[in-house]
């Protein structure tokens, strides 16, 4: 699935670069409004998916390499090393929303729920047009809320994920 995300984002990136002619901002148009945390429920907007993003995660080859390494380390049960590898990748692409999501997932696996939620929020703020990734972050937040007994909060987070087309 991760590969799918990478491919999707790459395709979108290429599409966008092609469309924007490489010059700064083009036009506005995000999908949803409402602040994070989802307190007030979501507002469905008539806009199309947003297309204005400045720094794109490029999934450069070193980042791919480190992601591969991180997954291998995770598979071996060494989440500490897996975290270190993602952090290393983040030094190369600090605004790669997928990397922040990966870090959040690893923290969740380590039982660090609140840390995972913050990382997921960071990922969401950088995810731009990647609805799938944003939905995944919401699902992670829902899970942590559920675990901490915040059923209503969890439901709201799931709702956010659903709105994003999941």
């Amino acid at each position: 699935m991760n590969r799918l995300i990478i491919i999707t984002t790459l395709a979108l990136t290429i599409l966008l670069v092609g469309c924007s002619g490489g010059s700064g901002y083009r036009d506005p148009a995000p999908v949803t409004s409402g602040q994070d945390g989802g307190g007030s429920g979501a507002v469905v907007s008539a806009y199309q998916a947003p297309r204005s993003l400045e720094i794109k995660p490029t999934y450069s080859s070193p980042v791919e390499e480190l992601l591969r390494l991180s997954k291998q380390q995770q598979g071996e049960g060494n989440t500490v090393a897996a975290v270190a590898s993602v952090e290393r990748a983040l030094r190369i692409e600090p605004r790669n929303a997928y990397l922040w999501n990966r870090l959040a997932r690893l923290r969740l696996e380590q039982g660090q729920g609140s840390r995972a939620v913050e990382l997921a929020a960071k990922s969401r703020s950088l995810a731009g047009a990647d609805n799938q990734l944003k939905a995944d972050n919401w699902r992670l937040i829902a899970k942590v809320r559920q675990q901490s007994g915040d059923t209503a909060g969890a439901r709201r987070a799931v709702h956010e994920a659903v709105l994003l087309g999941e």
Partner: protein
Amino acid sequence: MVKKSTPAKGRKKSPVKKRRKSRGKKRAARTASKSSFISMLLGLLFLFALGGAVYMAYLDQTVKSKFEGKRWAVPARIYGRALELYPGAPITQKQFQAELQQLGYRKAATAKQPGTWSQDRGRHVVHTREFDFWDGRKSGTVLDLRFSRNGLKSILDRKGRKQALARMEAPQIGSIYPTHKEDRVLVQRSDLPKMLVLALMEVEDRTFNTHHGVDPKAILRAMWANLTAGRVVQGGSTLTQQLVKNFYLTSERTLWRKGNEALMALLLDARYSKDEILEAYANEIYLGQDGSRAIHGFGLASHFYFRRPLQELDLPRLALLVALVRGPSYYDPYRHPKRAKKRRDLVLDILHTRGVISKKQRQAAVGSGLGISKKGRKVGGSYHAFLDLVRRQLQRDYRQEDLTSEGLRVFTTLDPWAQKQAELAMSQRLTRLEKGRKLPRGKLEGAAIIAGVEAGEVLAVVGGRDPSVAGFNRALDAIRPIGSLVKPAVYLTALMQPRRYNLLTPLEDESISIKQPGGKRWTPSNYDGKSHGEVPLHEALTKSYNLATVRLGMDLGLGKVAKTLRALGVERPVDLFPSMLLGAVSLSPIEVVQFYQAIAAGGFRSPLRAIREVLTADGDTLQRYPLTVKQAVPAGPAYLLNWNLQQVVQQGTARRLAKYFRPEQKIAGKTGTTNDLRDSWFAGFSADKVAVVWVGRDDNKSAGLTGSSGALEVWGDMMGRVSLAPGGQMQPEQVVRVLVDKNSGLRAGKKCRAAEIYPFIMGTEPTRNAPCASGGVGQFLRGLFE
């Protein structure tokens, strides 16, 4: 002790008998005294033996504990970040070569050995060394790097295959010594170059492999040589004895001590193998002094004198180390190069006469210089201020003795290149400012910090104008009023109420007088002494208008502004006086970095970190200082503020910065100046780096500089020399950008002459058309935005 026999009283005895008796008596007495003498002697001997045995046991215990216990206090080693190499990495050739120099790599015709590199224009071939990273040991390898003007273009391995990622070893930037300042780089027996071992034995202890710790023949030989020479010309100590001598902390030379050393040498030899003894010797031997730091062992001596690992030393350098054994101070190659060379050549002569090296080898070696590293033995920046930060963090988490003796390895975030550039910018620019503005010479001081935006990693710390002085660390400890640097917190507080404020909300820049809690009135004024009437919110910040800011802050409430400051990471309590709105808030430069990091990262605060990992000497991870984030303020308002801070650089109080950067780098920042020009501040950031500069005087007198004429110039010099990612901030999903007619504040069309794009929090953007935008193309454009 022999008892006299007493004659029996009142009994007469014949003389013969008497004589016989007396003779017998004498004999008996003699026998008794003899036997008692023997038993006495035996007793004595026994006692002596017992004492001796106890003493030997004591010595044995000492030897054992010295040898096996904490033989070597190894200071914690502090490393900078390991340079990541990948296609597209923003590393210039110059920067890469500086890194190689820092790591002690040698330029060669071909990079055959680890620790060497060769160059053919933009192509660099590097043979890296083996290194124990935090995530395991990586063996040395050959990297073929191609650079273009923009940075690293490609990496190939030895066989010409493309590599996605590689890294250099982490450069060591410091150690934490115990109070007696012994330092070492531990080496194992197997790491000792064969030539070093041979030379040591030939010169210092020929029978090392066969003797029992002491070599009586050598002692006699030395005594004879010394007697005939009339002075001490030769020593008879074995390596084992020399090692024992080093177990003591004093260099007392008494016969008793000599005897003790000999006994301990015998014990040591009986207890341990030759290899173990040699390894201990190689790590213990005192080989020089670096200020107050004592250089122990060949491992550290190699780094100290030659800036490279022991395994990479050639014959003449190894011979110099062996030469130093006899007297590191007398033969100090820095202070007495001739003496040192003479002694080294003698070592080479001995090796030749004993057949260890050929005549040709000897000649070549004798013909070469001492090969010691030049330039005050230091390259790169000075790391006092950064290490100070690291030490403070470590001392919170570790005991002092663990830091100084356990050989911990601390991997930090320091970027030596950024550090060097920051130091240069600070010292050069302050000198230029003093000259150019006719300020008193040598009075200006400064501090600077650079950190990564998203992860809050501290890349460089400058604690003063002269970075080589490890004194007052202004970057951490100079707590000064921040002036207008506080304003972004005021405007952010407003922008966090999007229904009430946006970037175009009109503010009154008119005089104001406020009654302070003490009863006194406070009447602020603008820097230019004028008031500017009604101005849009963004302009008030761009031009740093005091009156508009105070009015805005008072409308918002001081408590709310203070709350924003706290959210952005300002932990120091803030007094809720109206003057706080103009920066009557005192912070240290590092606290300001934290404050601006949260803004630069789109509202996500990451606690500043200088340490990534702490490892034990065996390479196990003791502690990681992980990357953490916390959403401090909502992303939308943070984005609007960032946009505004870019305006400050493009057309506001920080316009001077434009000459340092390209427009697409989208630098954002804020100047700060305090009363009587005492403090000159600049805080700013690109997409990837945030930095703060303070310039002022230690005596708190006027520095004669505004934020723009002082700190900003240092900032520009400094950040202009490090790579900055272009692109500015990422637009969050809650933000829309709308073309607005500046005259009416309504939606503009193509016909509108004074139109500009402004970001808004979604739902707060103007919806009505400006008169100039009605119909035609304007309608079409509006359609586009919807």
